[in-house]
């Protein structure tokens, strides 16, 4: 990787987050480069989720700065992060189970009909959104989802995750953050989600993947950010380090 010449798309510098006396983030940095999958690993309490919450607007850091494409970011809510193109898929809370696929994909950003129906009667453009939802899923190669009007709870865990990933990547987003996307899934479904992550990268969308699952991280990540005691202590690649070496760094044994 020629990191010296490439510009990161997303940068965090010196992030600090304290909860009383507990320091969740202690001067933590992060760089994400265009077109890469960045794995983030770390022991419990290493500050992985605090780091991610800062990047996705769910938490406001006490100190430090973040930049997206050179622009400084000042998030007050997850909404702000979405507005600039940082989309986050959460492990379990990604979708509303009783709502259908299309409704979930457009949840919180429904499109309205043109003309008086939309402006006065606030009517949503249901058929248009269904069409685009179908296209978004097709683009990701999720052919198994036949019916876009199906409730999400009738889908398998992997399919639900796929819907969440489709939502994150379908709206001109610049960065997709996946928080433990395979934690609740079986072998075959994990494989599908990992393939989905590769597809996103191949479409040029950089991905941050947080996972406890070392094999999954080593399978898809281009670079691996190792978080320990609230800060980044190393960045390795699957080519230069083995899994046990990474774990050693992560736990402080190395």
């Amino acid at each position, binding site marked *: 990787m020629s990191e010296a010449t490439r510009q990161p798309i997303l940068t965090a510098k010196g992030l600090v987050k304290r909860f009383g006396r507990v320091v969740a983030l202690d001067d933590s940095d992060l760089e994400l480069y265009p077109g890469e999958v960045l794995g983030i690993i770390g022991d419990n309490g290493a500050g992985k989720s605090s780091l991610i919450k800062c990047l996705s607007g769910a938490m406001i850091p006490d100190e430090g700065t973040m930049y997206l494409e050179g622009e400084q970011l000042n998030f007050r809510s997850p909404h702000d992060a979405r507005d600039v193109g940082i989309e986050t898929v959460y492990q379990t*809370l990604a979708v509303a189970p009783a709502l259908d696929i299309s409704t979930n994909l457009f949840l*919180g950003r429904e499109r309205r009909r043109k003309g008086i129906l939309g402006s006065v009667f*606030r*009517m949503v453009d249901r058929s248009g959104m269904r069409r685009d939802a179908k296209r978004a899923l097709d683009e990701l190669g999720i052919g198994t989802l036949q019916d876009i009007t199906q409730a999400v*709870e*009738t889908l398998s865990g992997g399919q639900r995750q796929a819907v969440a990933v489709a939502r994150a990547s379908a709206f001109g987003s610049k960065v997709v953050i996946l928080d433990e996307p395979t934690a609740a899934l*079986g072998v075959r479904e994990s494989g599908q989600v990992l393939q989905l992550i590769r597809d996103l990268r191949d479409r040029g969308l950089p991905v941050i993947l947080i996972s406890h699952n070392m094999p999954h991280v080593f399978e898809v990540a281009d670079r691996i950010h190792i978080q320990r005691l609230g800060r980044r202590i190393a960045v390795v690649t699957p080519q230069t380090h083995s899994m046990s070496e990474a774990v050693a760094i992560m736990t402080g044994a190395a």
Partner: protein
Amino acid sequence: MDSNPTGEDALVGLAQHDKTVLDRIQHALHRYPVTSPAVVLLVSGIVFAMLSNGRFQRPETIGIILQQTAVMATLAVGQTLIILTAGIDLAVGTGMLLTHLVIAKVAVDQGVPPILALLIGMMVGLALGAFHGFIVTRLQLPPFIVTLGTFYIFNSLSLVYSKAQTISKEALGGENSLLLWTGKFFTVGSMRITVGVLVALGLYAVVAYALSNTSWGRHVYATGDDPEAARLAGINTNRVLLSIYMVAGLIYALGGWVQLGRSLSASANAATDVNLETITAVVIGGTSLFGGRGRIWGTLVGALIVTVFRIGLNLAGVNVYYQNFAIGSLILIAVALDQWIRRVGK
């Protein structure tokens, strides 16, 4: 290299294609939740028609069923919205009574023109709803407890405010007054349709539209279904909750107006059944008490079922005391059905 080496997933995948008849019914009901209450209404209508020597299906009886359902069905709209967000409104009846007294008393005691009295009633209803919404969203108290408290408070305020006296039709300006306009009827054949029935139906149409065709409606469902997912999708769930409690409060006033036309008087002791019956209508209508699932039209069907059972059993000559037995059984069946439907795909 996989952390979880098992072949079970492939088997699960195969099993999904192998659906039994019961699975199909479960999926159909999951998709079209109004089906079961509609079937109950239809079947009970047919049965009561057979048991009542032809009296049940007379247009006169149908008209009476509609009139008797109107107040409860109106209030059940607000109840449905609240239950869709996994809340409940135990104060819907006393809230309606308080606003209908406000409408009557500002018109009678203060001499406010009827149209203005109605508007004042709506403002009061809105304020009562906003109070609920404020406590639920800001103080994070469970709706059950909040509205249990206001149930008593509204009841007490109604009695104090009206001095427990009934305001008569004459005092309200006679049957041609706008205040009692919802009691006016026209006839279709020999079936009497009151304005109050039309007000209720109009309300259903408006709310059905808003629920299924606007972003707000989708956000109501999402908030009830999974508040955390809704928040993460960028929905301000507190604002959604506040809005539905305010709409429910506005509906107190609408229901109060329908009640004025129904009883042609105003009293703090009217319509005592309406409180719980709105919940009954919502539950029988297929809306889940756990939030996020249900259809507003189901509630209308549920409200009609309650009245159809009461009047039908009466006409069939069944001891009146069995009416509540039948309705209670329906509730249990409806809730059991909901539990089963919600397990779809699991």
